[in-house]
């Protein structure tokens, strides 16, 4: 009897200890900070741990969008493994395999041309994602197809409505193992790293992510663990160069030779020695001239990037006989105004006149001045450049020879 009493006393101590442990464990629970984004109205506890993340962009305020709309994940879980178990695309929800649910979710960037929401549809059919040019060209060169029209892409894709003369109806997925020519097989093994869904190879100078973030999340290498939380439409030329100036092809070994230097001087180090440039081609950022339909696709499947190079020298400068095309902003809903709003480097308003491509796409960062000259504002730099039309100058160029190579004859800068 006494023995039991003593044991009970000891057990009471144990019980008290375990109850204290319970209280201790409960007090150490992360302070459940919840965020209820207005878009979903469902509380999310992500910020219980992720307290110091910067806002991803002014267009995606966290109070409206929250985290889960883009990233997925278990919004209620406070256990890291469970919370992250259902995230879309790991660190990068814009990866093309999940982009339709993340960036395209709630019909944000996925939809019809009329609503201007077809971003994902355009990207998925663009050469940046399909890689048609390289595949078609290599297959043509090695005799696997009679012309340079694209039949294969990185993935199979269809276009419901072909709007341009060079548009292709559909692509089948390129399968190198089905090819008979060994060079095409080697190409398939080593050269498919440059499209938007490919994980780029290691290389600090060339860091990029996949999907939308490959372009819209620049400067990944400046963040130590790649945990950059930023989306922007002000994309500097250095970001384009993470793919477009990354090295050189070796057609004998059918390989891609990465450059191992870290170029700093844009004019002298960056581009291939034989390339010729006019002043604007190396002082402006790529996106100052190349429009979004060039960069993200125009909705059609093209066989080659040259088919969607809509901006030429004459787009801004005109020819001897014609001034460049212009467009006067008529309403607040004008696409030029909407784009200028996203990247407020210019003060555009209704009544202003901007340059447009032949397809009617506005170069919203340009403006026609009252004296007949033009002005362009760098989208990534904010720098202001002024320029004049060709008409009325001493230029002797033929009207039907307007590709840049003709202009380079006189106007290339000395490297």
């Amino acid at each position: 009897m006494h023995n039991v009493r003593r044991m009970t006393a000891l057990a009471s101590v144990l019980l008290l200890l375990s109850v204290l442990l319970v209280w201790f464990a409960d007090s150490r629970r992360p302070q459940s900070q919840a965020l209820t984004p207005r878009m979903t109205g469902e509380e999310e506890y992500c910020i219980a741990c992720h307290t110091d993340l910067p806002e991803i962009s002014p267009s995606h305020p966290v109070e409206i969008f929250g985290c889960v709309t883009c990233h997925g994940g278990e919004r209620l879980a406070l256990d890291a493994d469970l919370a992250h178990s259902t995230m879309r695309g790991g660190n990068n929800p814009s990866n093309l395999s999940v982009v339709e649910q993340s960036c395209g979710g709630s019909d944000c960037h996925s939809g019809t041309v009329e609503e201007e929401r077809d971003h994902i549809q355009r990207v998925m059919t663009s050469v940046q994602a399909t890689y048609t040019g390289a595949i078609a060209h290599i297959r043509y060169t090695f005799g696997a197809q009679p012309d340079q029209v694209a039949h294969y892409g990185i993935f199979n894709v269809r276009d419901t409505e072909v709007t341009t003369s060079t548009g292709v109806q559909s692509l089948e997925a390129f399968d190198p193992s089905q090819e008979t020519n060994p060079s095409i097989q080697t190409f398939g093994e080593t050269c498919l790293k440059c499209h938007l869904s490919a994980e780029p190879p290691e290389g600090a100078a060339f860091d990029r992510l996949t999907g939308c973030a490959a372009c819209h999340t620049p400067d990944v290498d400046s963040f130590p663990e790649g945990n950059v939380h930023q989306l922007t439409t002000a994309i500097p030329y250095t970001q384009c160069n993470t793919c477009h100036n990354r090295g050189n092809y070796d057609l004998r070994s059918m390989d891609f030779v990465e450059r191992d230097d870290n170029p700093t001087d844009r004019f002298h180090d960056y581009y291939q020695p034989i390339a010729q440039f006019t002043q604007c081609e190396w002082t402006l950022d790529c996106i100052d001239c190349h429009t979004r339909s060039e960069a993200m696709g125009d909705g059609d499947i093209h066989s080659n990037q040259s088919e969607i190079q809509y901006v030429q020298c004459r787009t801004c400068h005109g020819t001897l006989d014609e001034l460049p095309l212009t467009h006067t902003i008529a309403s607040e809903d004008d696409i030029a105004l909407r784009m200028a709003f996203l990247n407020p480097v210019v003060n555009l308003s209704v009544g202003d006149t901007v340059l447009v491509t032949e397809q009617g796409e506005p170069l919203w960062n340009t403006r026609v001045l009252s004296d007949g000259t033009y002005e362009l504002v760098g989208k990534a730099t904010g720098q202001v450049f002024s320029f004049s039309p060709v008409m009325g100058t001493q230029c002797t160029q033929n009207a039907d020879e307007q590709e840049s190579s003709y202009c380079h004859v006189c106007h290339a800068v000395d490297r």
Partner: protein
Amino acid sequence: MRPNFFHHLHPPTIPAQQSRWRYTLGAGGTAVFLLFVLAITGMLEMFYYTPTPEQAALSVQTISYHVPLGGLVRNTHYWSAQLLMIVMAAHLIRVVMTGAYRSPRRFNYLLGLVLFVAVVLLNFTGYILRWDQGIQWALVVGTNLLKTIPVAGDALYVMLIGGSQPGPATLIRFYAWHIFGLGLLVVILTGWHIFRVRRDGGIAVPPPRLREDDARITRFELVQREVLAMILITAILFILAIFFPAPIDAPIEQLTTMANDASAPWFFLWVQQMLKWGDPFVWGIVVPLVVMLILALIPYVLPQAQDAELGRWFPKSNRLARLVLIGISLLVIVLTLLALLPGS
């Protein structure tokens, strides 16, 4: 001392020899206490749990992570349930290994077996209530097993899950079975079981003339021991609950999509292992039923312990019964281990 209500639930005195831990293992009493804990924690969970496919897993996450001490409640419920299975198995083994199931306790032995099955089903229904990716395949396999029963299978399937495939009706049915259908059954059977213990003469001992030791302890002492056991079990449950949280997984997206985990709950691993061998009706239903039948027949067909052998471990006369139980236990353990082997 004046006996209070709890003292009165016990007989005035019980034989000292047979009241020791090392004889009873305290298994029966522990099981009753765990049932009590399960009822309390389960009731608390009901205040937050939402039995709909969209909300179930999310409400489990809410209980686990956001309700103050909710995680403790859920983990304690989980661990009580797992311990209850083990304790009941220990109780069964003790009763067979001491020959205590002998007439007149044969009926109570059967009641105990039914209780055991009911608790296994409670455990399974509770597991399904998580409705997350961790239970997805156990649900599909467990319910499809019913379909393999000849003639009545398809009807039984519909009666259990309430439709042609698992869905909202299934979850609400499992919820109802877990809390009332099975819960109430276990409460009633437990009351009956305890009543029969008293009716059958308390703990099994040799008749007075054959007894070596006539010493007895009072109900006061018995209750004191029970209090000690309850305190210890509570402390153990809390410690388990804090350091080993109950399993949880992401909500089920789609019942046809393969989830990462395809293993059965641990107490059904032995059945899952047998299912790999072929005909699901034979291995998944007939064999487990035969095992239960053999267990149920032990007091009726196998030699029993003699009067003088009662009240101690390993009576010579019921050797065969003991061997049968050891055989069944080894079978279950080996099958479970096989199922746990990587790559199996």
